[in-house]
Structures are given as C-alpha cells and as structure tokens.
C-alpha cells in the first residue's frame, strides 16, 4: 500500500514538472514533430493490420451468433460497426498501443536515465522531465485520435471484405447495416476515450522509465511495468468514462 501511494505521489510530482513552462518553445516544437513520427506515424501499420482482422472476426462472430430468421442480416453490419466504434477502436487499440508505444517510451527514457543522459540535461539547467516527456504526451494525445479513426474505417472495411467473401452477409446488407441507426455521438465518445487513454499511456510509461535505477535489467522491468500499469489504468478509466459519457 505504501509503495502504491509513493508511486502515485511521484507520478503526480512528475506531471507537475512535465507541465512546467517550457524553456525554449522552438526546441519543444522540434521534439514534438519527431515524436509525432516516432510514436504516431509509425503506429499506423500495426493499427491498420490489427483493425482489419479484428473487424473481420467481429463481423464473422456476429454473423454466426445471430443465425436466426427473426434477425435481419443487416444487423450483422450494425453490430460490427457499433462494436468497432464503441469498444474495439478506442479501448483495444489503446491496449495494443500501450504495448507498442508504452514500452517504447519506458525503455527509451529508462535508457536515457541509466546512461546519464537525463543527468546531462539536468546539469545543463534543463527541466529534463518537461523536455523529454511533454513532446511525447502532446504527440500521442494529438495523434491517437487519428489512429482511432483509421482503426474504425479499417475495421469496418475488414468486416465488409471478409463478411461478403465468406458469404455470411451481402454487400448491400452490410452497407445498409453500417448506416442503420447510426449515432454520431458514438464517434465523439470513442475519440474522448482515446485522448484519455493516450494521456495514460504516455504519462504512466514515462513515469516508469524516468524513475529507473540500475541497468538494462531494470530498464526491461520498467518497460514491462509500463505496459501492465497503463493497460490496467486504461481498463479502469474505460469503465469510468463509459459510465460518465453514455449514462
């Protein structure tokens, strides 16, 4: 319990340093652009691949579990669409990104810590927490909503291609289904969740990396902890945000 409270306290203290006034805006801008490429653009591939296949599987499972003459087949498209928008493209993609981006952030910052690069920044009089972490937070918070949109689109396309190829639904029914009773607020809900999850992934992982002590073994442990802690926090906030936003 003491360790949890101590970790929680150091997390908030670190955030206080991260959001202090930046020293030189041009340097932060340059760093943010680098992070947008490293953490954002380089995640498009994995998000696209996973979303395509998950969209396909969601469509097939919906089809096989609703094989009943009472249900119109276009409901398969509707079910796939809502599953993808409400849960898959925000929460599941966030969990995947916690693995990819979170471990990347923790190991990068952890390595900077054990190789004294953070000490070098501090010695120059630079707020190392802000200089290293803030661009990562800004980059993920800005870019992850785009990843969610890409995931939604790819997931629905995956469901359409595989659903029609497997013969579980016709193209017309699927397209009718994904348009039927569409609630635009679901997209907003998904994007709001994504912003929160992006913040959790970047800050929780950065906190684990920033406080590494030791060597490569500890960096590896910090990377694992970053994924576990961000995933658990994401799932917790998923419940809270769903209750707040959809009730």
């Amino acid at each position, binding site marked *: 319990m003491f360790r949890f409270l101590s970790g929680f306290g150091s997390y908030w203290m670190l955030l206080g340093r991260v959001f202090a006034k930046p020293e030189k805006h041009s340097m932060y801008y340059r760093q943010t652009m680098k992070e947008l490429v490293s953490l954002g653009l380089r995640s498009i591939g994995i998000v696209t691949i996973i979303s395509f296949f998950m969209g396909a599987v969601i469509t097939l499972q919906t089809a096989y579990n609703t094989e009943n003459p009472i249900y119109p087949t276009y409901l398969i498209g509707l079910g796939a669409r809502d599953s993808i928008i409400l849960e898959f493209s925000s929460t599941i993609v966030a969990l995947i990104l916690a693995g990819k981006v979170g471990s990347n952030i923790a190991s990068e910052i952890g390595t*900077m810590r054990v*190789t*004294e690069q953070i*000490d*070098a920044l*501090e*010695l*120059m*009089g630079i707020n190392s927490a802000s200089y290293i972490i803030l661009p990562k937070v800004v980059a993920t918070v800005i870019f992850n909503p785009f990843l969610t949109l890409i995931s939604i689109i790819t997931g629905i396309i995956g469901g359409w291609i595989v659903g029609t190829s497997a013969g579980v639904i016709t193209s017309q029914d699927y397209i009718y289904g994904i348009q039927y009773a569409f609630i635009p607020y679901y997209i907003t809900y998904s994007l709001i969740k994504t912003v929160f999850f992006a913040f959790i992934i970047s800050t929780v992982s950065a906190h684990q990396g920033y406080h590494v002590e030791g060597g490569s073994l500890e960096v590896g442990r910090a990377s694992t902890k970053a994924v576990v802690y961000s995933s658990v926090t994401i799932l917790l906030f998923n419940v809270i945000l769903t209750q707040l936003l959809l009730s």
Partner: protein
Amino acid sequence: MIRAEHISKSFGDRRVLTDISAVFEPGKTNLIIGKSGSGKTVFLKCLVGLLDVDEGEIYYNDVPFTRLDFRGKKELRQKMGMLFQGSALFDSMTVEENVRFPLDMFTGMSYPEKLDRVNFCLDRVNIVNSNRLFPSELSGGMKKRVAIARAIALKPRFLFCDEPNSGLDPKTSIVIDELIREITVELNMTTIVNTHDMNSVMENGEKIIFIEEGEKCWEGNRNEILKSDCSKLNDFVFANSLARQLKDSSK
C-alpha cells in the same frame, strides 16, 4: 573557485560522505581519487547539484549554490560543463547536434554562428569530418572527446569529469588527460576530475583529494603523493606490483 564545506550525504541508513571540505582552484586540474565505491561520484554529483547534500555548503565563487533556488541554480549550471563516465551523449542526435544542443537551448545565436562554435569545439578536441555521425558510430575515445566538446560549447567556468579514462586504452587515456589539462588552462576553468587512474594522477594532479569510505583522508599534489605517510593512500597508490617495485627502487 569552488569551495565545499563539511559535506555529508546518506542514502537511507547508509552514510556515503562524511564531513568533506575542500577548495578547488581555477586554472588547475583538481583530482578526486579513491577506490571504486569510496564516494567520489556521489561527491561530484553533490558538487554539481545532481544530488542534494544532507549537511554542508557548496560555494561557487562565494555564491552559496546549496541555498540557491531553482532559477539561481539554473543560471549557474549554464556555467558548468560535465563529462560523464559513459559520455552521456544523446543517442538520437548526431555529433553536431549534440554539441549544438546547449547553444540551441541557451543562446540566441544564428545557425551559422552556432555551426562555427560547434566546429571550433570539435576541432579543439580533434574530431574532424564526424559531424553527421551518431554516438553509436563512434569509438569510446571519440565519444569522450565529443562529450568534452559539448561540455565546453558554452565556454563554462567550471568543468567536471567523472572518470574520463574509464574503458579507454592507456594511449587514448593520455590524450583525454592532456586535452582536459590544456582546456582548463586555456579557459581558466575550475576543473574537477574523478579518477582512480594513477597515470592521470601523476600527469594531471595539481591538486589531489583522496577519499576513502566517504571521508577525506589526504590532500596534496602529485609530487607529494608518493611520499605520503597516509597508509590508506599508500594502499591505494601502490596497489599494483609495478608501483610497489618503483617505490622500493626509489628508496
């Protein structure tokens, strides 16, 4: 000049430094020597403010560093340069970007001016045609020299070197030692070097402090070190058989 007065530091129940006082003079290469784990690096990190001291005061030209607020420390730190044990170059930046980094952060210089200064510093440490290389493409000695170039980019008044020869062959170690000594005189810096390399001690030791188990045991210079009657220092200095033979033959 840097003056440390009665510095003590503990980590939990473990006392690492006990009541260390010392004066480090400008234009000289001041050495802190001692065995591994004796508290040299902790003392150096206390001097630069990377660790807070439990007791004692540190003065930079009579400015009480330990009592300065964040802004005051930040201003003073721009007058410090440090060469870390593992060089601590930024992996994601090229050699040029590493050396330019403090200039980007703290000066309003134009790009050509910064480039001139970067090339001057790299030239001074004998690094040529390597501006576009990344730290992973450099040898250990080159990394140290680039780190020195970065440390002197802002023309510091104080230079700190934590074991500059660790992991280097004897010849490269001598090159690094000479470079540190020359730069110290050129820029009239107060330089403090942590080392357990006896070659460095005999070449650079204008002022030497010996630390053993967190306490200052001896203070002097390279001429006095061989004649000291401090048993702990003698155990350290004459640890290898060659040094013992030299001592015996000089008697």
